[in-house]
C-alpha cells in the first residue's frame, strides 16, 4: 500500500510539474470539436503584443494569487522608485537590492517552463539534493546573466532599439526551446531503455522469487537472482557524476537560457536613467531571489523522488516498474514540452 502511495505521489508531482503548462501540452491534441479551451491554448501559444522576451502570461487566477498580487505590484513600484531615487543621488541602493531580491523570489514562483523542465529533470534523474540546488541556482544565474548580456551588449554598447532587442530575445527563446527538446530526447532515450530493461527483468521467471528487486540498468540483467553479482540497490555515489556533467548543464541551459522580462525592463530603465550599474546589481539580486525559489522547488523534487525510491526499493518488481515508468513519463514530458513550444513558435513565425 505504501509503495503504491509512493508511485502515486511521484505521478502527482509529475502532473503538477507540467500543471502550469497544461494548456500548452493540450495544444498538440486536436481540439476543434471537443470542449477544451482552445482560446486559452491559443493565448499560451500567442505572443503578447507588448512582450519583452517572447511568449508570456497565461495564468489563471486563484485566491492565493489575489492576496499576493498587491505585494508584487508593490515590489515592482518600489523597483521603479528606487531606480529613480538612485539617479537623484538619494542612495536608495539597498532599497533597490531588497526590492529586486523580493521580486526575484516571487517572480520565480510564477509559471514557467524553466521550472517544469528542472523539476521533471530532477524527478527523472537520480540526483543528490546538493546538486539539485546548485543546478537550480545556476539556472537562475544564467537567466540573469543572459538579460545583462542582452541589454549590456545590444542596448548599452550598440544602442539597439526595442525592436532589435525583441528580435534577439526571440532567437534566444527559440534556442531555449530547442535545448528543452534535446534534454527531453536524451532523457527519453535513457529512461526508455531503463524502463524496457526493468520490464524484462520483472517478467523473468525463477530466481527473482526471493523478492529482491533487481536494479536492471543494463539489459543483461534479465536473469538475475540474489547471487548473480548485479547490484541490487541503488548506490548513490555511483550516480553522482560531477555537477558539470553535460546532461546537467543541458538542463541548466534549457531552464535558464530565456531571459525574464522583469530583468530586461529594469536594465533598460536604469540605462535610461543613467544608472546602468544599479540595473546590473538589481538583476543579480533578482537572480539570487529566483535561485532561492527554484532551489526550494528542486529540493522538493529530489525529496519526492527519494521518497518514492525508498518505498519501492525493498518491494516487489512492479514498484520498480512503476518508478521507471514515472521516470520515463517525466522524461517524455520534458520532450513534449520542448516539441510543443517549438511547434508553437514555428506556427507563429
Amino acid at each position, binding site marked *: 500500500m505504501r509503495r503504491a502511495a509512493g508511485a502515486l*505521489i*511521484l505521478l*502527482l508531482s509529475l502532473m*503538477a*510539474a507540467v*500543471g*502550469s503548462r*497544461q*494548456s500548452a501540452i493540450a495544444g498538440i491534441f486536436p481540439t476543434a470539436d471537443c470542449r477544451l*479551451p482552445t482560446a486559452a491554448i*491559443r*493565448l499560451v501559444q*500567442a*505572443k*503578447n*503584443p*507588448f512582450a*519583452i522576451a517572447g511568449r*508570456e*502570461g497565461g*495564468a*489563471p*487566477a*486563484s*485566491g*492565493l*494569487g*489575489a*492576496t499576493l*498580487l498587491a505585494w508584487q505590484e508593490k515590489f515592482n513600484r518600489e523597483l*521603479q522608485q528606487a531606480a529613480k531615487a538612485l539617479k537623484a543621488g538619494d542612495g536608495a541602493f539597498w532599497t533597490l537590492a531588497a526590492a529586486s531580491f523580493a521580486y526575484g523570489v*516571487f*517572480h520565480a*514562483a*510564477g*509559471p514557467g517552463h524553466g*521550472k517544469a523542465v528542472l*523539476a521533471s529533470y530532477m524527478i527523472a534523474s537520480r540526483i543528490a539534493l546538493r546538486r539539485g540546488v546548485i543546478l537550480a541556482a545556476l539556472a537562475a544565474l544564467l537567466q540573469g546573466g543572459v538579460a545583462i548580456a542582452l541589454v549590456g551588449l545590444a*542596448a548599452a554598447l550598440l*544602442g*539597439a*532599439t*526595442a*525592436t532589435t*532587442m525583441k528580435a534577439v530575445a526571440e532567437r534566444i527563446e527559440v534556442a531555449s526551446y530547442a535545448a528543452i527538446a534535446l534534454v527531453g530526447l536524451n532523457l527519453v532515450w535513457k529512461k526508455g531503455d531503463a524502463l524496457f530493461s526493468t520490464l524484462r527483468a520483472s517478467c523473468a521467471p525463477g530466481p527473482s522469487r526471493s523478492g529482491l528487486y533487481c536494479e536492471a540498468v543494463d539489459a543483461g540483467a534479465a536473469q538475475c537472482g540474489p547471487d548473480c553479482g548485479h547490484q541490487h540497490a541503488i548506490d548513490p555515489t555511483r550516480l553522482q557524476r560531477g555537477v558539470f556533467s553535460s546532461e546537467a548543464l543541458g538542463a541548466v541551459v534549457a531552464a535558464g537560457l530565456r531571459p525574464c522580462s*522583469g530583468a*530586461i*525592463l*529594469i536594465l*533598460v*530603465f536604469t540605462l*535610461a536613467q543613467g544608472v546602468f550599474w544599479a540595473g546590473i546589481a538589481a538583476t543579480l539580486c533578482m537572480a539570487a531571489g529566483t535561485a532561492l525559489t527554484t532551489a526550494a*522547488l528542486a*529540493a*522538493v*523534487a529530489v*525529496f*519526492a523522488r*527519494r*521518497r518514492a525510491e525508498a518505498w519501492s526499493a525493498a518491494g516487489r518488481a512492479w514498484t520498480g516498474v512503476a518508478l521507471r515508468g514515472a521516470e520515463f513519463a517525466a522524461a517524455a514530458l520534458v520532450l513534449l514540452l520542448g516539441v510543443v513550444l517549438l511547434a508553437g513558435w514555428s506556427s507563429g513565425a
Partner: protein
Amino acid sequence: MSRRLAPLAALLLPLLLAGGAAFAHPHVWVAVRSEVVFGPEGKILGIRHAWEFDEMYSAYAVQGLGKDGKPPTREELAPLAKTNVESLAEFEFFTFAKEAGAKLKFKEPVEVSLESDEKKIVTLRFFLPLETPIPAQKPFSFQVYDPTYFVSFGFEKETPVKLAKAPSGCSVSLVEPKPLAAEENKKLTEAFFQNFSPGADFGIKLATRAIVACP
C-alpha cells in the same frame, strides 16, 4: 528527518507549482483612454483607443531612439508600433465588446501610431472598427483587459471614455469590478483545483466595464 518530511514535501510540490500559476503578475501597465465613435446615421462604428504605457515599458520602447536626448519621433517609433499591433488580433485587441449581451467582433486596427511625450512616456493610438457598425439603441458595453494578465490595463482616472459624434441623449457610465481579494479568499480551496485548468482570470476580474446607452 527526511523520512518524516519527505512525504510532506512531495505533497507540497503540486501546491507550490499550482500556487506558482497564480503568481503571474503584470509586467506592463497601461492607462486607457477610449472614444466610442458614432457614424452619421447614429450607428457605433468602433472604438478609438489611446493607451499610455508606464515608465518602464516607455523606457524600453524609446531605447536607442531619439537624437541628443530628445524623445523619438512617430516615424522612429513606427517599427515598434507595427510589431505591437500585428499581434493584437490574437488577443482580440484586448477589447471585449458586447451589444445586449452578444459578443461583437472587430476588424484590424487602423490609424495606428506610437508617440512619445516630452517625458518620454509613450502612447499607442489606433482606431478599432467594428466588423459591422451597430445601432446604438441596445446597450453597448466594452472592457479592456489582457486575459493573460501580462499587461495590466486600467482606465485613466479623468474622463476615460468619451463619445464622438454621438446622437443627443447618449451617455456613458463605468462599472467598477468587485474588490478582488475579499471575494477570492473565500474560494481558496476551489481555486486550487481551478488552477489546473485555464479558467477565470485576473485580467477580466479586474476590468472596468464601460456602458454606452442611447435613447
